[in-house]
């Protein structure tokens, strides 16, 4: 098949704007999936994805479309993950295409996420085919939204397609528009092979499967192949296309989208964004844009039942096979026992991992308050990255600190701009600029510390704009920020698992909130308990749990010895569940105070 009849495209849409429905309709219309196999949203195959209505892993599918000119075109739809945490994966998926459908809900209009991905597509020089979906809705404002979209992509409102993926109206027109407007792939069929890995997955029996877009040359089974950035080499066991299941083909040539079975045993050996080429006589230059993605949000995962530790370890190992961005290392907490410090791309990623562990592996988990990665330079000049309060050096030996920043884009109705600005102010945000997308809708750009958004920023944003704001961000990297570790001392003894890292400006408020929460959770005992929050040796907040003065059983004679013994045994058992810190007994739930505090303290 010549490059002339190939079109590679993705669909960009906000959650619930109808991407999956449109994809399903396309599969149906081109008879790629037999009617009887058609279940809703074929592409979102993971149970969790179907439930949440979002795409976590990119997928691809090839459909054959008989166009108006009488020729049959090969259309490769490359699905993109739909969330901020996966921006990098989105950008790689887009890099594998020449065009993108920009799908906007006729009732909702453009959302921040759509905008961010649309900009990504424009950066990748993709031809954008704007589509207004859900025109069948009573509340649809197809003309208004078409104007907004045309304004964004720089075209005419008449060129914006109006469809209903649900009823099928206009879907064939979408396919024709892809053929007409999206350019065919360019590439040198005779050059050494170059293929962009835009996703990968792990198959228990066949190892790592790379999802690729071939840019130049041709790949064949049995060839020895090299991933240029990472240097991993392997022999191609099988390759082929998605239609929509994997179907082996004798080769994958320039312009094709398909899969390569590598036999590798670990997805981290083959990173998204890397370029495959022949091990011998391969290309000299990789395709542009490879980045090593690094986790930015960290949290401890502990089994509620300590007996489940080995199962948690096995489950993380399995998840990691399929999720190169997930990192984990063993962590021991005095309060919570054995667990793992895990690194995630963002909060959604964390949520997904937690849910998959609980659901697919039947584990009961306790997740500690997440924190971001910090960079700390000690007096001796060495920079270290800190993922855990325990790794933070002593306050005295710290020269400077840096924290990760993001550029946030918020779109909200214009009458909520004040509330959004106030929120960003509270979160140490720096105003970038403001733009009216329409008289009613405004886009705000702020630079914000990642730490300020990991906890409840999105909830706050939603509640302060009555649910109307949408939000997206991209990582900017580390910037100077005065972060400190706040320690908690119980009766003078430091308790590791209660420490937190926070910005100096928030330290007093969070420290105070934390000791107050602890006072409520630590029962009175035989000794007075001093609860202190401190930065280094400086105490910033203090509370006291007074010692109790009486704890006796009033009377005990021959008739009630058994009952009193049972009470004593019960009291003893209660003590065993407590954590002993010096003379103090701390109930397990007190250690969770730090979780709530982070939420309140950040607000």
């Amino acid at each position: 098949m010549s490059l002339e009849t190939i079109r590679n495209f993705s669909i960009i849409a906000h959650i619930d704007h109808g991407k999956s429905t449109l994809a399903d309709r396309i599969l149906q219309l081109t008879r790629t999936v037999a009617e009887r196999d058609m279940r809703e949203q074929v592409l979102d195959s993971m149970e969790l994805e179907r439930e949440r209505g979002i795409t976590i892993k990119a997928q691809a599918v090839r459909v054959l479309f008989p166009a108006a000119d009488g020729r049959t075109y090969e259309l490769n739809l490359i699905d993109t993950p739909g969330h901020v945490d996966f921006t990098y994966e989105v950008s790689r998926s887009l890099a594998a295409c020449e065009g993108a459908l920009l799908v906007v809900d006729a009732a909702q209009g453009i959302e921040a996420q759509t905008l961010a991905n649309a900009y990504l597509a424009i950066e990748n020089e993709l031809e954008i085919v704007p589509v207004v979906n859900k025109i069948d809705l009573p509340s649809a404002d197809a003309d208004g939204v078409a104007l907004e979209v045309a304004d964004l992509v720089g075209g005419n409102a008449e060129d914006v397609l109006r469809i209903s993926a649900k009823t099928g109206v206009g879907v064939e027109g979408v396919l024709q528009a892809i053929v007409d407007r999206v350019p065919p792939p360019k590439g040198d069929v005779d050059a050494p092979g170059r293929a962009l890995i835009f996703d990968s997955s792990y198959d228990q029996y066949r190892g790592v499967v790379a999802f690729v877009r071939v840019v130049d040359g041709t790949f064949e089974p049995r060839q020895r192949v090299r991933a240029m950035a990472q240097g991993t080499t392997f022999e191609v066991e099988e390759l082929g296309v998605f239609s929509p299941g994997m179907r082996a083909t004798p080769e994958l040539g320039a312009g094709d989208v398909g899969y390569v079975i590598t036999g590798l045993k670990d997805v981290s050996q083959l990173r998204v964004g890397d370029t495959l080429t022949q091990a011998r006589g391969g290309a000299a230059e990789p395709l542009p844009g490879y980045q090593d993605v690094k986790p930015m949000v960290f949290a401890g995962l502990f089994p509620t039942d300590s007996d489940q530790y080995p199962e948690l370890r096995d489950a993380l190992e399995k998840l990691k096979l399929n999720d190169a961005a997930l990192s984990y290392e063993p962590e021991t907490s005095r309060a919570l026992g054995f667990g793992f410090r895990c690194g995630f791309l963002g909060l959604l990623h964390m949520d997904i991992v937690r849910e998959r562990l609980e659901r697919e592996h039947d584990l009961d988990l306790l997740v500690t308050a997440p924190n971001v990665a910090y960079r700390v330079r000690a007096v001796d000049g060495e920079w270290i990255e800190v993922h855990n309060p325990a790794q933070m050096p002593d306050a005295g030996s710290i020269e400077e600190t840096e924290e990760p920043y993001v550029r946030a884009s918020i779109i909200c109705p214009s009458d909520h701009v004040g509330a959004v600005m106030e929120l960003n102010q509270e979160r140490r945000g720096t105003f970038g600029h403001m733009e009216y997308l329409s008289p009613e809708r405004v886009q705000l750009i702020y630079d914000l510390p990642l730490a300020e958004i990991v906890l409840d920023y999105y909830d706050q944003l939603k509640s302060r704009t009555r649910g109307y704001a949408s939000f997206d961000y991209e990582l900017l990297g580390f910037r100077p920020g005065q972060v400190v570790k706040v320690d908690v001392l119980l009766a003078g003894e430091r308790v590791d698992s209660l420490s937190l890292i926070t910005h100096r400006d928030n330290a007093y408020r969070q420290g105070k909130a934390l000791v107050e929460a602890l006072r409520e959770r630590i029962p009175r005992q035989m000794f007075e308990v001093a609860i202190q929050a401190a930065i280094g040796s400086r105490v910033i907040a203090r509370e006291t749990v007074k010692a109790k003065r009486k704890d006796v059983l009033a009377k005990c004679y021959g008739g009630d010895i058994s009952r009193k013994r049972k009470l004593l045994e019960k009291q003893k058992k209660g003590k065993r569940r407590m954590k002993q810190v010096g003379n103090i007994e701390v109930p397990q739930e007190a250690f969770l105070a730090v979780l709530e505090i982070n939420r309140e303290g950040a607000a």
Partner: protein
Amino acid sequence: MSVRHLYVHVPFCAHRCGYCDFVTVTGHDDVHAAYVDALLAELALHGRLAPETVYVGGGTPSILADDLLARLLAGLPGALEVTVECNPETITAAKARALREGGVNRISLGAQSFQPHLLETLERRARPETVAAAVEILRAEGHENVNLDLMFGVPGQSRSDLQADIEGVLAHAPEHVSWYELEAKPGTRFSVHHGAELARQAEALEDHYETVVAALRGAGYRWYETANFCRPGRESRHNLGYWLGHDYLGVGVGAVSTLGLVRRRNRPRLRPYLEACAAGRPAPAEVEELTASERGLERLMLGLRLDEPLHLNGLAALVDDAACDRLAAAGLVLRDGETITLTERGRFLANDVVASVLR
């Protein structure tokens, strides 16, 4: 069988007080005589006894008519110490005489409080003057070892109420005082009616307890057990038996015996008890088999209620030495080789201290 301590339960009461969770029976005056017969029949099954102490408790043993009471006492084995629990309103000169003639040398009088409004809350029938009159009659009839039962933590009890009760007790110069915190056990009428008030005053009770201990010690009483005070040499030998972990035999409905590793609890229903005893059968009972470590734990729990050192003979394995050292350093226990004693502050916190001392 050599039993050192004999307990005899008389369940009858004129009225069941709201806070009470003992086995009690109201009404049924017609069965008093049958019950005394049953008690003596049950006792006979245990052969000849020569106990050190006999304790007739209730209920209200003194509610029995004088002749019935005399018959019961005559049927009980003699002992060094024979105690009968009495309610003040049942004490007459004739009753006091019947008690003394029946060999009773210790009277335990349920005063509870000297404040009319608190007696009312407790649903007691006695008035303050009834208590005074009862003590006077007992003294006049030659009873020279009298205990008064008092209570603190009664809903609505103020500091000055407590102070007045302390003065009331001292005015009667009893040889022995038991002063309990009111325990509103779940399920009693009392905890239902007064639960909220009891929770509200929980912190004030810390003061009350300390006040009681300080006042009675100040007046020359020895705080020899968590809730018990005595003039020198006037400890309740019977109750000491429980606290020192001795075996004891209990007869009557609901009475408990602990003999070695067997604890027997007579069933609380009156009718089946009477029938079994009348037929010469053992009283219906449930049996609890204790393990040696349970018995040891009880020994620790009970022994540490006393002001005297607890010898750890055979109990050392139950004790967490590290915890003991910690508590000793904090001034809650004294550890001296083979003995443990709670300090004054340790005694106020006995539950927590004992739970901590246990391994």
